[in-house]
């Protein structure tokens, strides 16, 4: 399939497409990824917190049935393949955005797919907090709410940053799939030109840009995580 990929005609043609569409696609991908991550964290963080503090040994034990329900919902959403989920949430997308196709519309299924993932990541981060430090805060008369906002979350910031970085890169790869339902971005370019119209060079460039984005997000995330971690200060 890659035989005439670097022939002069394809090169000129691809260059034209790249010039006219690639920059905008890159911008769209960034836009979708960032907005979807922000909403996933807004929804996922509190749920992750609940999963930890609501435990029977947590700082704010919640009814067992409620914890069961939260866990089951998170697990169900995590187990539906993203491609199927995108289609299944069409009614919700229409309700929120007014349409089921397009760039903004693709944010809704992304958030639905990513927030349970973020919740689990947040849960993991918060469980790393030394329980003795939480007990110490309790011994000082800290309320469960204060323990969450002043101890658990601040103490796990480095871990939260590195986990949210994982979430961003995952969401980024999901945005590529949302090209199928007309979500814009690099994924749409890769599918439209590479898969439907056999312009593999364009697809290759789009994929390389996605790889570069992942690298950039990961490097920045790792750097921030290390930089904020005061345990590593020597």
């Amino acid at each position, binding site marked *: 399939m890659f035989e005439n990929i670097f022939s002069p005609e394809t090169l000129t043609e691809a260059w034209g497409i790249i010039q006219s569409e690639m920059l905008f696609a890159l911008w769209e991908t960034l836009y979708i990824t960032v907005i979807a991550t922000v909403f996933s964290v807004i929804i996922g963080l509190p749920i992750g917190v609940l999963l930890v503090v609501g435990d029977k040994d947590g700082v704010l034990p919640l009814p067992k049935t409620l914890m069961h329900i939260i866990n089951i919902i998170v697990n169900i959403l995590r187990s539906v393949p993203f491609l199927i989920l995108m289609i299944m949430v069409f009614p919700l997308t229409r309700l929120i955005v007014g349409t089921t196709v397009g760039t903004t519309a693709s944010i809704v299924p992304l958030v639905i797919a990513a927030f349970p993932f973020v919740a689990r990541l947040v849960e993991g981060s918060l469980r790393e907090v*030394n329980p003795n430090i939480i007990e*110490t805060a309790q011994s*000082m*008369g800290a309320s469960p709410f204060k323990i969450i906002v*002043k*101890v658990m979350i*601040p103490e796990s910031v480095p871990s939260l940053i590195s986990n949210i970085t994982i979430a961003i890169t995952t969401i980024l790869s999901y945005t590529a799939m949302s090209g199928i339902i007309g979500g814009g971005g690099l994924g749409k370019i890769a599918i439209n030109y590479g898969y439907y119209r056999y312009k593999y060079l364009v697809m290759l460039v789009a994929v390389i840009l996605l790889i570069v984005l992942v690298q950039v997000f990961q490097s920045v995330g790792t750097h921030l995580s290390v930089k904020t*971690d005061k345990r590593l*200060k*020597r």
Partner: protein
Amino acid sequence: MIEIKNVSKTFIVDGEKFDALKNVSLNIEDGDIYGIIGMSGAGKSTLVRTINMLERPSSGEIIIDGKNMNNLSAAQLRQERKNIAMIFQGFNLLMQRNVLKNISFPLELAGVKKAEAQKKALELLELVGLPDKAKAYPAQLSGGQQQRVAIARALATDPKILLCDEATSALDPKTTKSILSLIKEINQKYKITVVIITHQMSVVEDICDKVAILENGVVAEEGYVTKVFSQPQSEIAKHLVYPDYEGGSVVNADYGTLARIVLNGAVGTPLISKMTLDLNMLINLVSVSTREIGGVIYGNIEIGIEDKNAFEKIREYLKQYDGITIEEVR
């Protein structure tokens, strides 16, 4: 005053009941430095955690200055806990906050204004001898320094009680001494009641006025340190006070009666030599140990003697000395 009244605590581990505390009663007076000592698993940590209700007793009551801790609402309990500070073996500082912010943390919880909290934190940092570490992070400090910061943090809310849960167990002997003298200084300066949980005899000897010895969730012995450590009655106390105590099986048959001479305060004469000459009696020296408790020398001399008759003779002889007694071991 802290009154621990008939406190029991039962844990259920893997469906099996485990009695961590069995009907423990203790009174801790204001201003005391009270030691609770025992082997690991004796229930010490559980006991100290019932005082501030980090561990709710299964039965029994904790009464602090007349207030029953069991019956407080969650909000009242949080309020009350500001009067009961606690320090731990692992220091438990907030690792992502610098020293100053760690110390002002309890004040922040209490809603004290930031500037005021910072001023107080700096004063406390001065008190614990680390004025130049305000901006440092816990990971940059040694264990001893971290415990000093933890002590400063504990004092931030002007507590009436300081609970120390194995606070020096992770520290080397020299640092332990300096932390203990800091605790003593705080006890005297601020009249704070201190409860110390430890498995180290030296800690109790160094700073405690009173001690309770805990074994298998039961108080085996309790009272003034000078009394308990110079004349231990219970088996566990004897084990703690005489680390080599095995019930005394080292004496041969000719000197089969084992006795212990107890010294309360230093003796001016070469006691044993003089006694053997005066009584014209041979004795077998089994073990000698002396220790300083609260500035006074206490000692135990275990001797093997011929028979009961010899024991009576020695007892008569020792009557001329104040504070020296003999007791039969076997």
